[in-house]
């Protein structure tokens, strides 16, 4: 394997992920295009891409919250406090627009707050339905997507035609399929790419042009496919959680540093981001709507009454990969996740799957306490 190639590619990704908003400023100057950020998790970035603008997904930075406390309560989740904080400091003024979707009450509040503290930046709001099974939900979703399309057209200064949208969907589907290929390589040989690095790969996809990212992933996959998989020693763990924000890399390093390997996950900045493609078999707006309503992985920001529940999905995934246990990462103050955790706990207990729940915070936490708990959990697995 050409180590330098993999290393070079990973350095390209890391360069995008470190200080993302500064990098976007540089990118805008060089490319003369608009940049529109969307909140995680459900916004169809393809719409922004089809408008000829660069879609990025808002990322939590490592900055301590200071100015933001004038605008947001301390009991809001880390990413909400952080985004509002850096917006208050002017660091999001590089963006031409920010569009939010309804995933939780904190996200809704963030959209309103950003409108107040970033008056020069367009802040949009896409109300995707949260109850998925009521009558008329498809028509409502299409209507809201069309409203958002119209807003983005105004921001871009031109129409977003269906052909462009179809092309963008194909670009995004390609990127997702490449990320799935990388995911499968890791499932077969987790030491091929540390989980921290896999997070960098996914997050960089959220921050750079998909075409460029796909080219780099193709090279990365080609390099990694040449590596002979080595047998995995130690415990195999499944990481679940962090509904919309990336876990801090230090926590992931601790998990992999106590004699375990993260073999699979359902993080937003992980498998959930690329698991499901848009099935392009008709009107593109309707295809985007269908992906949201029917095809996404179960997650408690919507009311998925029919179909598999999230905790059952986790159990299935854990059994599929043969993991020894689960690490559930809950971002502090993440209400949808906290409310759902008891069901996850019960389901894992019923299935006889050991798990440990680790609460994570935006602020620096005592890693030693987390390390002790995670190491004890791995020791307990035998």
């Amino acid at each position, binding site marked *: 394997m050409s180590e330098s190639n993999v290393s070079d590619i990973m350095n390209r990704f890391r360069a995008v992920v470190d200080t993302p908003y500064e990098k976007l400023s540089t990118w805008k100057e060089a490319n003369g295009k608009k940049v529109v950020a969307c909140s995680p998790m459900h916004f169809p970035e393809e719409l922004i891409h089809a408008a000829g603008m660069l879609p990025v997904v808002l990322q939590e930075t490592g900055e301590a919250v200071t100015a933001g406390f004038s605008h947001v309560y301390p009991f809001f989740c880390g990413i909400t406090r952080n985004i509002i904080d850096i917006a208050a400091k002017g660091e999001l003024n590089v963006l031409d627009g920010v569009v939010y979707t309804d995933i939780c009450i904190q996200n809704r509040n963030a959209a309103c707050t950003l409108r107040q503290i970033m008056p020069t930046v367009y802040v949009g709001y896409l109300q995707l339905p949260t109850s998925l099974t009521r009558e008329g939900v498809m028509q409502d979703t299409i209507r809201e997507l069309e409203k958002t399309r119209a807003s983005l057209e105004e921001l871009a200064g031109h129409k977003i035609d269906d052909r462009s949208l179809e092309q963008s969907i194909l670009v995004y589907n390609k990127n997702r399929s490449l990320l799935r290929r990388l995911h499968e390589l890791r499932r077969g040989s987790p030491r091929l790419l540390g989980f921290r690095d896999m997070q960098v790969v996914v997050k960089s996809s959220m921050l750079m042009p998909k075409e460029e990212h796909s080219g780099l992933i193709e090279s990365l996959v080609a390099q990694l496919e040449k590596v002979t998989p080595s047998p995995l020693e130690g415990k195999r763990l499944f990481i679940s959680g962090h509904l919309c924000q990336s876990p801090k890399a230090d926590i992931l390093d601790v998990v992999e540093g106590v004699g375990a390997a993260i073999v699979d996950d359902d993080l937003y900045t992980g498998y959930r981001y690329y698991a499901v493609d848009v099935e392009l078999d008709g009107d593109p707006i309707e295809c985007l709507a269908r992906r949201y309503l029917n095809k996404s992985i179960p997650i408690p920001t919507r009311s998925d009454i029919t179909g598999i529940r999230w905790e059952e999905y986790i159990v299935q995934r854990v059994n599929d990969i043969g993991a020894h246990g689960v690490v559930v990462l809950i971002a502090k103050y993440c209400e949808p996740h906290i409310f759902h955790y008891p069901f996850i706990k019960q389901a894992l207990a019923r299935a006889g799957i050991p798990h440990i729940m680790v609460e994570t915070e935006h602020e620096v936490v005592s890693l030693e*306490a987390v390390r002790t*708990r995670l190491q004890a959990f791995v*020791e307990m697995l035998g």
Partner: protein
Amino acid sequence: MNVAVGVDIGSLTAKSVVLDSDCRVASYKVIQGKIVDEAAAVASLQQALAAARMTRAEVGFLVTTGYGRNMVSFGEKNITEISCHARGAQFLFPGVRTVIDIGGQDSKVIALNGGGSVVNFAMNDKCAAGTGRFLEVMAHALEVPLDEMGMLSLKSEDPALISSICTVFAESEVISLTAQGRSRLDIIAGIHESIARRMHSLVNQVGVSSPVVMSGGVAKNAGVVRTLERLLKTEIILPPEPQIVGALGAALFAVEELKKNVEV
């Protein structure tokens, strides 16, 4: 003859236990300190070896545990205090099902199955309330020697309610109660009730099955033990030296490693 050693590097004490290959305790040493660093850990190790008339060269395997297990430069393996306290308690009291450990700054509850393996555990998270530190702060606020707090608490018939969860706010509450003229015995009893309530919540996260063993420095406090027994409605068994249970467990793991090396 090679010996096995376990060193438990905690926040306030460093403990070493020396075992022979038949798992007989040859010696142990507890070093107290304001700051527990490598020097304190080495001192406990050297003094324990000296008491056993052994040298470092005769140590066949050394396991470190505790908060500082990764901090020290010696030791062949490190194992968490959860596994080590369970192992040590199970050795002393075969059949133990719950271990409650309250140390200087942390507390933990460990559930074992019938085979003596750890099946669940809970630790205090980000807060030292209910630990040895809590008792220290309160003893200082009341100007009572720390080692007298437990027995004094048992003399009260009307414990004061300390409602604050946080050590810092609880100290303010204690000062306030003192100023109001509340009896010192009642305040001390209230402090012990507060610790026991905190531990009761932690125990409930894991569930309690008898027999229950308590380890750690706070196990020497009769007030905490009796109050916890009342809340849990179960007898709590105390080792003769509760502070060394973790180091003992680490030494037992070291014996296993010694035996593996001999078989190889």
